[in-house]
């Protein structure tokens, strides 16, 4: 099979990329603006002997995803803010029990029921810290349907490699924008399969004994090895333990396996950064307007540049620091009251250079919005 092209919305791109990555199980609950992902999965998964199930709520959806993933299937769910809130407990379970899964959160306006059919990017910090307790997390995003395809496949690859939940932090504009996308030929993008144990039947098997590189070769649930899985702190057999050494060791392992591999997970794009004096840092659909403005100002000789982040968590501090080193102004363009900007300020020298360029009224931020705010930042009047 060779590559094909399609004119489809982002939610369908997410679905097609998930199939490309080998997803075999989807459980979800209808919620705007993510529902088209579930609808796509309901139609397509059974064609490939995959499973779709509409659960009674978002809590049950992520729990079912975790159960399916344990048996060795690639599994995902999709939701939006209110549903993502309901999933937070199970998200922590997936972190603790090291269950690979992908959770697409197509962001809408919040808090609460908020603005179901309008765009905001207010879940950035919820993705990071929404579940209780200290932990590391992976969250990724994209600004075009073409990028979304590749990022979705990468999200599955990271989930399987590190045995972790990965949040695909889409937003309403990305989910609903229809544009041309090239679906790559099978094999054109690498698809990662999870590690399975080589331990033979009858040998004492330690499902939760990580290799030196932090990876965990686990046996699929239902195969020859019978072991315990729990959300409690647990020893190498997966059995509950409150021993301080066990607790400390596990908490460190869960954080280190993500944080020690920031460089492996950091995905970003850069535009005109070589000599940029004004660096916009943006992500998701906001980055579309940011790029439009950058190209517009470049034509007028102004030294604008864009750093578009696709990996938001773990935050790629080193990348941001390096790319922003020479900038006079750094403007973080996001549709919230300033969430990722805190990380950018922490990453760079002279954080007083970092300004927030945002819009939080449910209306998509435009290049003109960014331009007007940049004039204020530069002291050029309104």
């Amino acid at each position, binding site marked *: 099979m060779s590559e094909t092209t399609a004119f489809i919305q982002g939610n369908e791109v997410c679905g097609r990329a998930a199939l490309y990555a080998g997803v*075999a199980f989807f459980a979800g609950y209808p919620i705007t603006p993510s529902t088209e992902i579930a609808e796509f999965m309901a139609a397509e998964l059974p064609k490939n002997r995959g499973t779709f199930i509409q659960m009674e709520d978002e809590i049950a959806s992520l729990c079912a995803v975790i159960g399916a993933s344990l048996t060795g299937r690639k599994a995902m769910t999709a939701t939006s803010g209110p549903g993502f809130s309901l999933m937070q407990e199970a998200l922590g379970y997936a972190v603790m029990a090291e269950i690979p899964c992908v959770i697409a959160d197509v962001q809408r306006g919040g808090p609460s029921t908020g603005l179901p059919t309008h765009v905001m990017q207010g879940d950035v910090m919820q993705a990071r810290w929404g579940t209780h307790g200290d932990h590391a997390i992976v969250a990724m995003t994209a600004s075009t349907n073409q990028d979304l395809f590749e990022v979705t496949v990468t999200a599955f690859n990271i989930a399987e490699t590190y045995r972790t939940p990965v949040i695909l932090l889409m937003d309403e504009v990305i989910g609903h924008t229809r544009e041309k996308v090239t679906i790559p030929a099978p094999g054109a993008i690498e698809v990662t399969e999870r590690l399975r144990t080589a331990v033979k039947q009858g040998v004492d098997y330690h499902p939760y004994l990580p290799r030196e590189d932090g990876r965990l070769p686990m046996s699929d649930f*239902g195969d020859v090895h*019978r072991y315990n899985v729990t959300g409690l702190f647990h020893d190498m057999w997966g059995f509950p333990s409150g021993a301080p050494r066990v607790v400390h060791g596990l908490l460190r392992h869960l954080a280190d396996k993500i944080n020690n591999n920031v460089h492996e997970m950091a995905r970003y794009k850069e535009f005109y950064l070589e000599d940029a004096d004004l660096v916009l840092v943006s992500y998701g659909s906001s980055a579309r307007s940011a790029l439009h403005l950058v190209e517009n100002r470049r034509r007028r000789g102004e030294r604008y540049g864009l750093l578009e982040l696709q990996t938001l968590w773990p935050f790629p501090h080193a990348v941001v620091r390096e790319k922003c080193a020479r900038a006079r102004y750094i403007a973080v363009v996001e549709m919230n009251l300033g969430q990722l900007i805190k990380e950018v300020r922490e990453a760079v020298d002279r954080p007083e250079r970092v300004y927030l360029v945002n819009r939080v009224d449910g209306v998509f931020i435009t290049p003109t919005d960014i331009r007007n705010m940049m004039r204020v930042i530069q002291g050029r009047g309104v």
Partner: protein
Amino acid sequence: MAIQDYLRKRFFPHIWCPGCGHGVVLNGLLHAIENLGLDKSDIVMVSGIGCSARVTGYVDVHSLHTLHGRALAFATGVKMSRPGLSLIVPMGDGDALAIGGNHFIHACRRNIDMTAIVMNNRIYGMTGGQYSPLSGVGTKATTAPYTTIDHDFDVVELSTAAGATFVARTTTYHIQEMTTLIEKSITHKGFSVVEILSQCPTYFGRKNKAGDAVAMMEAYKNNTVRLGAKDDVPESGKIRRGIFVEKSLPEYCDEYEKTIQAAEKGA
């Protein structure tokens, strides 16, 4: 296989209090599994949180100890991915019917092939004796120092109304009956509920002057009646035991297989 061979002796002693009924339930469950001759590798036990939930870890099967109330949702993901496995879900009364009530009724409705064992001790034991949705009016608990005003669910009626295709009730006193009922529930194709009245002498018993474990089990003997027995009459006021529902309806995984076939044909 000897019954001890189903246990993970490495993780004993267990955490249950002296006199707790949950060990009796575990005993009945293991005998049922032994009688059926099930292979340990073909069984998945999924549990939520609470005293009852600890059953899973002690048994040498694929064991999944999940979140409070969510065991049936996790189990649904496992079963739909590996329909050949036997799914057994030991649950507490609060776990199954308070925080997990929604998942419980929807699992009944789907008629997905698994067995929910509701170990009903009418109290939250692990947190130290708070009232549950099965405590019933007039029960004392640490969160009901003046007794509860909440009405309780009837697990049998609730499960039946929600669509479970096998519904039974027994007690820890009736160990032979319990073993038989669990055997039948596991063999039954569809969603099965077995409610087992299980004593909590430590919290329920002490607070409600129900006596020690032996006295509580004696009460199960005296205050319950087998369905169809000659004293099984409404005036007796006794709790009825036995099989209330046993019917054959399309099972969820089988039905989804038909969906797959329709999709493959391009229907």
